[in-house]
């Protein structure tokens, strides 16, 4: 469904991604792991057009999308939940969801209903300003907003960052539900254990490159992953 071939991304003269290649198949949950600065967020930002690769090819559902401008990604079926939620703080919850459906010309009332049934809390606060929500609620809103464009591929950047464990469980459960409903998910996560339990496959990034990849369950048992990301010492 999504295929990245040796993508290079530069910030000025600093190279953030040195030729990253990976694939995401229809209906999968794939997770990107890696230390801070490994290039996970840059990869996601590249996949939603916020960075244009200096070289390499990105294709989505068979189309070359390498040079498509960022604002057309939502309409193509790629939705991005950015790091730190980034919800519109002086818009109401409902307006935030409206923004999620910005590119749609058809009626999206039932999608809004779907988001509200997924996150009943949001329905109660639909008139409140986004900035007045708690962290967990903001994350729910950010995910709900991303779902409003009916994406076929959902990019999640650190969905558990700064949230209470109970909320994290809830968020991960909902990511599972989203996959059940047919949306492919690519998730970047610091919380490697939880991400790997949910995901089908994982890629481990180091210094702007894909270091290795495997099935999620295999990665959970991989000593390298356990040592670095799960905080265990190698016996």
């Amino acid at each position, binding site marked *: 469904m999504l295929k990245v071939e040796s993508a290079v991304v530069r910030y000025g003269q600093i190279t953030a991604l040195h030729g990253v290649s990976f694939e995401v198949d229809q209906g999968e949950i794939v997770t990107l792991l890696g230390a801070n600065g490994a290039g996970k967020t840059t990869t996601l930002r590249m996949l939603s057009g916020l960075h244009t690769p200096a070289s390499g090819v990105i294709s989505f559902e068979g189309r070359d999308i390498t040079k498509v401008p*960022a*604002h057309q990604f939502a309409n193509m079926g790629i939705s991005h939940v950015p790091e730190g939620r*980034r919800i*519109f703080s*002086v818009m109401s919850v409902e307006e935030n969801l409206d923004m999620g459906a910005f*590119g749609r010309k058809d009626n999206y009332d039932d999608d809004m209903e779907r988001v509200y049934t997924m996150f009943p809390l949001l329905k109660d606060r639909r008139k409140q300003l986004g900035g007045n929500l708690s962290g967990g609620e903001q994350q729910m809103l950010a995910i709900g907003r991303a779902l409003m464009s009916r994406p076929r591929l959902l990019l999640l950047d650190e969905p558990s960052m700064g949230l209470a464990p109970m909320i994290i469980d809830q968020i991960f459960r909902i990511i599972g539900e989203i996959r059940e409903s047919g949306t492919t998910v690519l998730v970047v996560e610091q919380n490697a254990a939880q991400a790997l339990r949910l995901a089908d496959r994982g890629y481990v990034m180091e210094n702007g490159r894909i270091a290795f990849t495997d099935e999620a369950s295999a990665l959970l048992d991989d000593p390298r992953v356990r040592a670095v990301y799960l905080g265990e010492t190698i016996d």
Partner: protein
Amino acid sequence: MSSYIAAGLFAGLIYSMVALGYTLVYGVLRLINFAHSEVLMSGGFAGYFFLHYFMKSNNEPTGTRVLLLIGALVASGAAGAVVAMLVERFAYRPLRRRNAPKLTYLISAIGASYFLLNFAGKEFGRNPISPPSPISATLQWNILGTQVSLFDVVLLIVTLVLFFGVNVLVNKSKVGRSIRAVAQDQETATLMGVNVNSTIAATFAIGGFMGGIAGLFVGMSSVVDYNMGFTPALLAFTAAVLGGIGNIRGAMVGGVVLGICMYVPIYWIGQPYYEPVIGFSILVLVLLVKPTGLFGESLGRSA
């Protein structure tokens, strides 16, 4: 005294319209658009040319006058919008693409302002000219001891209609939603599918439209001149800061309050050319006492 208040009020309406341009651009880009004074000037010239070519004599029938007025409003508004968009396209967008530091935007906008100012001076001459006015100067009413002319009434109606329109546009329409989204977070707005460049262009166009129409009124009340924009724009900026820059309602109220605050002291001083001095003192005062202005700074909250 009351006539000074009225004069301040009507001058303030013009500042309000210009202030809106500053406010919208500031709300979206967090930048002062230094070239806005030339938007005003281009509106003034467009209105002048429209009236110069289409108004044949000073005693046209009322129906024709109304049509001429509407035509001049549209022409000057359109000219203002086009010039504002050109400024955005050539002085701002190339820098935005490169993510340049803020100082460069200010300098490039000053450059655009100077270029337009003197380009107009070269192409249209540097002598002030008076456009023929389709609004009868003889019609006047005495309200509460103040002479109110037809010009003032037209100005009031046009300003109210435009502000109502812009308010609806920004708060209810899809363009308005994208403007507010871009104002809050450009990158996330992009992720939602908003085309940031065209949204910013639309913002400049809306502000430019209002600025151009303000230019027409400035021209009709005094003269059209290549540097007619400077003083009204400086005062309008003061008005925008006074109302809370980035806030649409603030621009409206700020303009009127500034107009009145400026004209009342002139009643005591008796020297009209101290207008900018008073306006500037008000600006410094506002910045020192309450830099966020009367209504606070936020485009999103203007609903």
